[in-house]
């Protein structure tokens, strides 16, 4: 796998076990933990969607979503970028780039995974650059999977 984030369940959501790494997948994890809604369709239909502390930019010409953290929500000195400026604002360092089809497949799997109530999970980018997830019943099991991948 190219990248991974180990996660631990805390009640209804999963949070990162790797606090010091902030690779692009982390933006995705943050979005899933507080801002993603199963019924949300607007991120597929609109170029820009703002949430509590995340944003999603949909690049329709290449069918990619860029999911990032809305830094202006925590720092009032940072201006909110307007929609005209947004395509220039977004890049692969301040957001997680994911193919739209990959996102749709991922959230189906993620929703099922969450229902299983497993205490650990990883979100990872596989060798084909697709983002995937897997649940585990123990931290050791998760670490073994990562080691043997």
């Amino acid at each position, binding site marked *: 796998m190219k990248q991974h984030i180990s996660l631990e369940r*805390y*009640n*209804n*959501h999963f*949070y*990162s076990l790797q*606090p*010091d790494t*902030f690779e692009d997948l982390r933006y995705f994890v*943050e979005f899933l933990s*507080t*801002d993603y*809604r*199963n*019924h*949300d369709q607007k991120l597929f239909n609109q170029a*820009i*969607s*703002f*949430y*509590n*502390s995340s944003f999603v930019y949909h690049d329709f010409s290449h069918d990619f979503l860029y999911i990032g*953290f*809305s*830094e*202006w*929500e*925590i*720092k*009032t000195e940072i*201006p*909110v*970028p*307007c*929609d*005209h*400026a947004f395509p*220039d*604002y977004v890049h692969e360092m301040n957001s997680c780039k994911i193919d739209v089809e990959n996102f749709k497949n991922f959230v189906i799997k993620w929703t099922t995974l969450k229902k299983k109530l497993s205490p650990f999970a990883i979100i990872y980018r596989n060798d084909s650059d697709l983002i995937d997830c897997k649940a585990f019943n123990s931290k050791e099991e998760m670490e073994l999977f990562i080691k043997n991948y």
Partner: protein
Amino acid sequence: MFGFNFFKNKQSEFELCSTHECEHATRPRGAHCNYQGIFLQPYQPKLLATDICNLKDFLLSNPSGSGLTKLSTVFPEEWSPAEITTRVLEAISSENKKIVPMHRFGILKIVAYTQDQIEIIIFYHIEKKSLALFYPNFQE
């Protein structure tokens, strides 16, 4: 101590972009308190969903009529700004919480619970030692 952008849009209700020296309207920010159902009226709130704890997701619009929106999860309407602050401080002081550092942004993300088990997301600014943002976490 607190930046109150989570209660009301701190800047002008017609906040303009200054990133590219343009004067385009921007999407709302903050705005998680809707005390007595009136605090968010300038944003023409549209109810999107209600969760199992009776928390509500609203779609808020920039008051300029530009159609620029943001999803905001809102504290119960009977909670005043002072009550929200009190409950957040109670939650953050309790033992039942999870702390996730986000060093890139100089903040801690804290997941904590009020006494009536409402999950709250709190962003704590490490250097300023202040609360940067807090809002209730919608449960699906």
